[in-house]
């Protein structure tokens, strides 16, 4: 193909659109591998302390609302589906489809964050926000976890607080990723409205899709680890 005939989207340091797309994908996956290590550090720290203080973590987890957690898991999986369909619309060059599915994804993401806001407020009002406002009195008679005032390890309340520190930092960092994702989707909708995408060029949609599915995967692990510690 002569130089003056190539796609207007092809940067000059690439041989072809395909090579350009594959470079973007590789870059995005390297970023996501880095994100795995970023969240991974928190997951490893969580694993160590859960191993060390199993009773306190089980008790603390049972104070979270399983209903909200499960609801949000379903909402986030739905948003992953709509995001996958937005990328598919990009592949098909369907501008209306891109915008429709991105709006649906933004809507579902907002529902998720709204629920998270309700949960955070509840926990704060119950005195479970770590820090000076943390106030927790163990009620050993009501726990299903086999732990009594006599068998409870020293600093039991402190370890309950530790669980909530992990809960707020991990879900908070996850929520921050979702806010960034919503920003990216708004940017994509503006680009789509300006007809910047076509069947042969929709890389930004595809890359945002990868990011969004990664955020979904983080939640897929967070949900059982923070909400389902001790439900039997």
């Amino acid at each position: 193909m002569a130089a003056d005939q190539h796609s207007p989207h092809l940067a000059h340091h690439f041989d072809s659109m395909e090579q350009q797309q594959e470079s973007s994908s590789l870059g995005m996956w390297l970023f996501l591998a880095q994100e795995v290590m970023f969240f991974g550090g928190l997951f490893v720290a969580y694993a160590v302390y859960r191993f060390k203080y199993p009773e306190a973590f089980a008790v603390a987890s049972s104070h979270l609302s399983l209903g909200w957690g499960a609801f949000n898991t379903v909402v986030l999986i739905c948003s992953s589906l709509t995001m996958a369909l937005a990328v598919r619309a990009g592949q098909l060059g369907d501008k209306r489809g891109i915008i429709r599915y991105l709006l649906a994804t933004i809507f579902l993401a907002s529902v998720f964050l709204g629920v998270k806001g309700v949960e955070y407020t509840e926990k704060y009002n119950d005195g479970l926000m770590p820090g000076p406002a943390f106030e927790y009195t163990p009620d050993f008679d009501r726990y299903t976890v086999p732990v009594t005032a006599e068998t409870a390890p020293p600093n039991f309340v402190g370890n309950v607080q530790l669980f909530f520190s992990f809960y707020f930092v991990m879900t908070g960092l996850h929520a921050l990723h979702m806010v960034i994702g919503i920003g990216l989707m708004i940017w994509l909708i503006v680009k789509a409205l300006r007809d910047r995408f076509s069947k042969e060029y929709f890389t930004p949609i595809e890359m945002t899709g990868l990011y969004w599915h990664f955020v979904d995967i983080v939640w897929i692990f967070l949900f059982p680890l923070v909400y389902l510690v001790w439900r039997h």
Partner: protein
Amino acid sequence: MSSSTHISSLKSYLNVFWTLMALTLLTVVVAFFDLGPFNIIVAVSIASVKAYVVILYFMHVKYSNHIIWLTVAAGFIWFVLMLGLTIADYATREWIPYPEAW
């Protein structure tokens, strides 16, 4: 075939979606049974299957080239190393008693 030229059908995306929904239900139901130390193992295994399905189909890795496979595997292996070595340390610290002061 590159990841962006393979167009999955609407039906295949819906199949992935229902698989993820079914596994979410399963992980909640299983949590209500007392499996002892296996509760956490089952929960993490189900989450791993869900993540695998998302990576393969939603993230198109099934249709991507080998260097993408390598990057995904590297992310996974390095995380398992970090987790495995750290747990191996903390889980075995008390196997040998601390020496008395001398």
